[in-house]
Every structure is written in C-alpha cells, then in structure tokens.
C-alpha cells in the first residue's frame, strides 16, 4: 500500500482545480477518490505521477471538467421529467381553455374572456418557456440555442399581442409588431439559411419557412394599413358632420314650434341638451385638439380617431364627470317624461364600459339623444 505525502495530495488537488473543476465539494470528493485508488493499487516504490495521470484518464472521455458539467446539468435539470410533464399538461389545459373561451365568445355567453385570457396566458407563460428550456437541452451549439430563444420570444410576443388586442389592453400593437419583426427579419432568415445548407433538414426548413410566412401573411392581411385608417377616420368624421347638420336643421325647426311641455320637463330637457353639447365638445377636443370640426377637415388632418370611449373617459376625468352628469340628466328627463304618453321617445345613452363602444359611437348616440329630445318637444 502506497502512502501519499501532503505535497502529493496538494499536487492532486491543484491538478483537479487546474482542469476546470470549480465545485469545492466535487474537488474534495475526486481528491479522496483518487487518493484511495492510488493507495490501494500503487506499489510502495511505484511512480506516483505516472500512476496518477493514468488514473485520472479513466475519469473522463475528453477532459476532467466533464464530471462537473454533468453534475451541474443533473442538478439544473433534475426536474427534466417534471418539466416535460408540466409542459404536456399546460399544453392540453391551454388548448381546452382557449376552445372553451372561443365557443363562449361566439355564443356571446359570459366567461369567454376568462377562458381566452387563461388559455393564452398558460400557453405563453408556461408552455412556450418550458418548450424552450427542454428544446435547448437537446441542442449543443450556441447558435441553435439563440435561434430557439428568438423563435420562442417571437411566439410569446405574438400570442400575447393577439390576446391584448382581443382584450383591448394597451400595448397590443407594440407586442405584435415586435413579434412579427423578430420573426420575419431575424428568425426566419437565420433559420432558413442555416437549415437549407444541411441536406437532412432542407425539406423541413422549406416547409416550415413557408408555414411561418403564410401565418405572418395572414395576420398582416387582418391588420388595417395606416392609409386604411386614414380613410376610415375621414369617413367617420364626415358622417359625424352630416349628423350634426341634421341636428342643426332640427334645432331651427323646433324654434318655430311653441312648447307644450311643463316647465319642469323643459328645464330637464334643456339640461340634457346643454350637457350633450358640452360632452360633444369635450370628445372632439380630445380627438382633434379643437372644439369644433372644420368641414375641410381632410386637408387639416383634423379627424375623429378610432378610440375606445372607455379609454377617453378613463384618461380624462373632466370628460368622465360630464358624461356621468349627462347620464343622470337623461335619467331625470326620462323620469319626468314617464307619464307623458307612448309617442314620447325615451332617451337612451350607452354606458362607457362596453369595450367595443368607440368615441365616434358616443358622438352618434349623443346626437341621437338631442334629436329625440327635440322631436319630443315638437310632438
């Protein structure tokens, strides 16, 4: 049995460290192991260094660091199978939730938003990140890992972008633009040109690239171009000007009529009418920056935008208080007019909570309220 000196032990420990083993625990384990082998197998007068190097060689295939890499990999991916299982379950759950959400949405039943948000949330924040982690474990080259990361990031941005759009959450367009830009300008060229060079992956690369381009193309066909938005806004604005002209004619007509209503009703009506004017002014101010719309709006780019009315009242406390006051005045008017007979138009104003209710819808509704009000007076 060979006896190791302290210098020889230090020599072995230094050599282990020099060969890239950094975990202290592992260094000490390997040191004791090597010492045991030497003590058990080396003759008393044997050559220490030669024996040590030949023993060390049995520990690895290419270099000693492999043991540490394997240790870290095992400790990091100790949950490999658990991750795989969670990925599978999250995939099935998200598909089920999304299907449920979409069916409910088509039927206009409650719970649709919950299903869609959870479904897309699970796929974006659990399924796709896990897929990425499991996928890069199978890949050896940094380039492949980076490409997978970029692809996953684009996919997450795309799914979240669509979710945000459907839910009318802010940042939807930004997410979708980032996703499509990453996918088309970065991921696709790198994926295509690296995949097509390898005869094994050539066909798959072409098929997948065609699918990606088709998917992105289909999404882009659903997007309204800036020019399209301009045309739509011009149409909305001229529609509003026409409605307001109709209202002006109605106002001129009612001036010639003597009012048959009681003083209280007239006062309530006047309050509604004035609040309507104020509300319209505020919306137009928010949308265009001016209090009134110029009939030559097209040349001045002074158009009513496609804004959610909910957003308008959330961002502008004044507009919100005016709208609330208007809703109350309408209720008050309707109550005072309740006994006036069936030929009277009840004034109906939409609440601002509906996410599909745009500011131009609000303007139209307000003009209609004013028209009905004037018609009630002319009755």
């Amino acid at each position, binding site marked *: 049995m060979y006896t190791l000196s*302290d210098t020889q*032990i230090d020599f072995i420990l230094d050599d282990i460290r020099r060969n890239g083993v950094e975990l202290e625990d592992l260094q000490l*384990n390997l040191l004791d*192991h090597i010492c045991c082998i030497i003590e058990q197998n080396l003759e008393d007068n044997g050559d220490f260094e030669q024996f040590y190097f030949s023993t060390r060689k*049995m520990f690895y*295939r290419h270099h000693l660091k492999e043991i540490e890499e394997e240790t870290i990999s*095992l400790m990091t991916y100790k949950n490999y199978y658990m991750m795989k299982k969670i990925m599978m379950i999250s995939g099935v759950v998200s598909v089920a939730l999304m299907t449920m959400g979409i069916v409910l949405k088509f039927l206009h039943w409650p719970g649709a938003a919950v299903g869609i948000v959870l479904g897309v949330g699970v796929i974006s924040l659990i399924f796709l990140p896990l897929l990425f982690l499991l996928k890069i474990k199978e890949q050896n080259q940094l380039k492949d890992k980076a490409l997978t990361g970029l692809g996953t990031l684009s996919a997450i941005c795309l799914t979240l972008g669509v979710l945000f759009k459907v839910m009318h959450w802010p940042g939807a367009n930004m997410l979708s633009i980032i996703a499509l830009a990453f996918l088309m300008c970065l991921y696709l060229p790198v994926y295509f040109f690296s995949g097509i060079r390898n005869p094994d992956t050539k066909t798959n690369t072409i098929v997948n690239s065609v699918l990606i381009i088709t998917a992105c193309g289909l999404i882009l066909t659903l997007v309204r171009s800036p020019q399209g938005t301009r045309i739509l806004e011009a149409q909305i604005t001229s529609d509003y000007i026409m409605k307001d002209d109709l209202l002006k004619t109605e106002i001129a007509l009612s001036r010639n009529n003597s009012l048959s209503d009681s003083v209280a009703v007239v006062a309530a009506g006047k309050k509604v009418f004035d609040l309507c004017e104020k509300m319209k002014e505020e919306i137009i101010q928010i949308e265009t920056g001016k209090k009134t719309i110029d009939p030559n709006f097209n040349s001045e780019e002074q158009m009513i935008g496609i804004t959610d009315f909910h957003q308008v009242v959330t961002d502008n406390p004044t507009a919100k208080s005016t709208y609330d006051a208007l809703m109350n005045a309408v209720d008050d008017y309707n109550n005072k007019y309740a006994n006036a007979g069936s030929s009277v138009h009840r004034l109906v104003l939409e609440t601002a909570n509906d996410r599909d209710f745009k500011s131009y819808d609000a303007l139209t509704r307000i003009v209609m309220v004013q028209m009905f009000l004037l018609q009630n007076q002319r009755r």
Partner: protein
Amino acid sequence: MYGYEITQKVKDLTAGKIQLTEGALYPTLHALEADGILTTETEYIGKRVRKYYSLSSEGNKVSDEKVNEFADFINTMKFLLDIKTGIA
C-alpha cells in the same frame, strides 16, 4: 459509504460485472444530495476530506419505490421474453 467505497462494493457484489465510473457516480450523488434523498457526513483525514453518503428517510421511501418499479420492470421483461422464446 463514501464514493470510492461505493464503487468497490458494487464491483465486489457483482463480481466485477458492473463497474461504476466516477464520471457517472459523482454527478448522481450530488444531484441526489440536492434532492434531499441522500444525507452526508464529512470526515477529515489529514488534508483530505471524506464524504459519507447515506439514505435520508425520504430517500428510503424513494429507494423502495424505485426498487419495486425496477423489480416490476424485470418481471415484465421476463414475461415478455419468455413469450418471445416460446414463439421462436
């Protein structure tokens, strides 16, 4: 048992048929320790530190489960291979 002892024990018990390599043994021991399946005690021998591994109470449970699973697998394979032999 410490690392070297484990390799020798396996070698002796299997009459040299199974030889654990250090490259497989230590990563596994570290991962099992991190999982709480193994507990450790250290002994200082001069400049060397020897780490003794033993099964924790949870480790005993896991070990029983895995041994049963493996025995089950062996039985299934035996059954499967017997049928195969029968057909052949």
